[in-house]
């Protein structure tokens, strides 16, 4: 009951039944694709506009909730990766529970696009601790456009999480949540006030340096950027340099996008000091494929090697941008 393997099976069962009936796993995207692009919009449950806060709260069943947000780039440069993510991420909760890496994980998923050129540049769901997260994933609109400027609106997503997510983990226990941004491009050079206004509804008055947004975010969140293979800029050193500047060692390259769940689980296990890298890889080999485990091992070598040096509240290095976001 409520165990990981049951969750996994139930998730897989729902997917099997839907497939048998011909409802595909990307139902919302299929529905949107059938309408003119002028009418494209986020599913109501995924629309960040006017949202005061997405909440990750404790409950009698889950008294020690751990917030985990996974926001992935859904633009064209990501190629097939968003579909792979969407198909695999539903397993994440079961994996985290089964491995006991964190207490009471609650997951929130979202999609990131390009505020300069996309109809739906940001989508953010709710924190869920059961298979409703599966519905959330199916409701993410894979718009697939993007601007072709080698940058996406990651900073807009970062701003939303910094300002519009509240967690009992932080408020009651001073514990950070986990934010994984999965993408393949640079932040926009500025977080533009007009985009914040249009997409989220906040009036922030002026444009803001993305670095200051990440600095604010890092107070309450462990932030990781995952660059998966099969995306456009996997081997572009400019991307790696950019994200290392922003997040330091929390920039992870992943050979096999199918291993994203395992990477997230192992990263959290390491950060929580529940496992070391070797044990995490043994754990992963038990549940996933050998290839996935190898990909995760490779991605985490750097994190694992310096895990001893990780500090739980470490602020990413080189955050020296202008601190002009009015911090609450």
């Amino acid at each position: 009951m409520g165990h990981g393997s049951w969750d996994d099976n139930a998730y897989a069962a729902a997917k099997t039944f839907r497939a048998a009936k011909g409802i595909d796993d990307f139902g919302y995207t299929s529905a949107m694709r059938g309408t003119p692009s002028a009418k494209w919009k986020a599913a109501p449950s995924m629309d960040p506009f006017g949202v005061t806060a997405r909440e990750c709260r404790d409950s009698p069943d889950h008294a020690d909730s751990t917030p985990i947000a996974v926001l992935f780039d859904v633009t064209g440069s990501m190629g097939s990766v968003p579909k792979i993510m969407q198909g695999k991420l539903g397993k994440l909760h079961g994996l985290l529970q089964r491995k006991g890496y964190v207490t009471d994980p609650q997951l929130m998923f979202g999609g990131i696009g390009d505020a300069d050129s996309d109809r739906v540049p940001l989508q953010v769901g709710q924190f869920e601790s059961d298979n409703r997260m599966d519905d959330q994933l199916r409701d993410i609109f894979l718009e697939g456009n993007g601007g072709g400027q080698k940058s996406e609106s990651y900073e807009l997503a970062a701003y939303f999480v910094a300002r519009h997510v509240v967690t009992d983990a932080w408020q009651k226990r001073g514990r950070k949540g986990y934010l994984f941004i999965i993408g393949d491009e640079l932040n926009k050079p500025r977080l533009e006030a007009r985009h914040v206004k249009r997409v989220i509804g906040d009036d922030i008055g002026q444009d803001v340096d993305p670095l200051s947004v990440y600095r604010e975010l890092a107070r309450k969140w462990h932030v990781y950027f995952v660059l998966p293979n099969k995306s456009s800029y996997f081997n572009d050193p400019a991307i790696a340099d950019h994200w290392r500047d922003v997040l330091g060692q929390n920039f992870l390259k992943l050979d096999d996008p199918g291993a994203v769940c395992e990477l997230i689980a192992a990263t959290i296990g390491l950060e929580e000091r529940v496992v070391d890298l070797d044990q995490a890889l043994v754990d992963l080999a038990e549940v996933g494929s050998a290839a996935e485990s190898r990909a995760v091992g490779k991605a985490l070598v750097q994190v694992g090697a310096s895990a001893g040096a990780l500090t739980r509240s470490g602020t990413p290095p080189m955050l020296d941008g202008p601190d002009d976001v009015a911090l609450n």
Partner: protein
Amino acid sequence: MANAEHVIVVGLGFGDEGKGAVVDALCADGPVVSVVRFNGGAQAAHNVVVGERHHTFSQFGSGTLAGVPTFLSRHVLVEPIALATESRELAALGVEDPLGLVTIDADALLTTPFHVAANRAREDARGEGRHGSCGKGIGETAWYALLERRGAVAGDVVEGQEVPGTPGPAPTVGDCADPKALRRKLDALARCYGPLIGDGQSVDELVSLYRAFADAVRTTSGDEVGRLADTGRLVFEGAQGVLLDEHRGFHPHTTWSTVTPDNARALLGGRAARVLGVTRTYQTRHGAGPLPTEDHALLARFPERHNGAGEYQGAWRAGHLDAVLLRYAVAACGGVDGLAVTHLDAPTSWVSTAYWADSTRCVDLPDRPDLTGFLTRCAPELEAMPDPVAWLEEAFGLPVRVTASGPDRADYSVRSPRPRRGAGESGHGSAPNRVDVGVGGRARAAVRPGGPRGAAGGGTARAGAVRR
């Protein structure tokens, strides 16, 4: 076997006789409209091997690899999550749209994660006294369905199990298409089991999952078997073995299921069918319970590729062919029309034809309530059995319709009726013999086991009156 006749396949042992492969062989042998499951649930494990392909059938009928659809009758306990898993396994073997091959009676009971958790919690609590349950919630599903009918309340002991909370009506497959009704029943189920298993499972999640299940499979009500039977031949696939039957098995090592052909006959509503009893050339069982002819040496000689110790079921055991139990099983079926004999490649050469207990020799199980205890302390008398098929045909006066000398479909042979040795004897020759060994109040016929050859000429082992 005449192609037009419906066939009911039952196991004459403690399960694992080879029913699945027999069903597959029958389906591959001639046109079959549907395989009908008439008992049990997701605990069934019927191995079918066709060349490179192997599948352990659980809820799908064992005719699936032969392309035959499955009907899960109202006597089956349906577990949707496991059904989905099995569907994916079959798809991986190349079966196209497996769920499209399944039809389910709306009245079939649902086995839920609550039942599974309760089953395991109870079996764990029994410790050394485990019943040898499969841990898949089957008994619990049948048990919970009893509670409302019996008007049970929290704290009552029903069939030896304590009622943990206030029970409600049992959810059925038909409820899955009606989220409101389903939620009501699942809420009651969750509350009832809460004291035993906690409240870790979200009912919301199950409601949406079961809704998707209802969308994906065809459910029917009314006389689906009748409708199917009118279009062609049906094969009824029994789960488990008659010696585990809820009424005729040896308690407490029994299943909550009518394993005998009774359900299948009821579903057929008087339509003619032949009963085919399946046995290995030796006796096996999983887990606890009596097995008089048990011989550990056999285990080493016949290792099982697809049978091992189950976490909740216990060890895999083997013994010599037990004609006493076999006769008992045939009687429990109300007679059978033919036998299927599997594992002819396993060169057993002994059979038990009688037991010794308390210095008395008996060839039939005594008519007494403590059969389990009796079987545990009796000593089998063994005799040589060089040719199991010939021996069984002689001793039971029944034709062997299917033989198997290996796990693959190619090792199975469906035999045409043919005159047998001793055809001049009454009842031996023509095909539709049915041996009635006097069940249910009729006088139990004396059955004299002879040697494999020795008694053959003397009306050997003919049991009671022959009827059609």
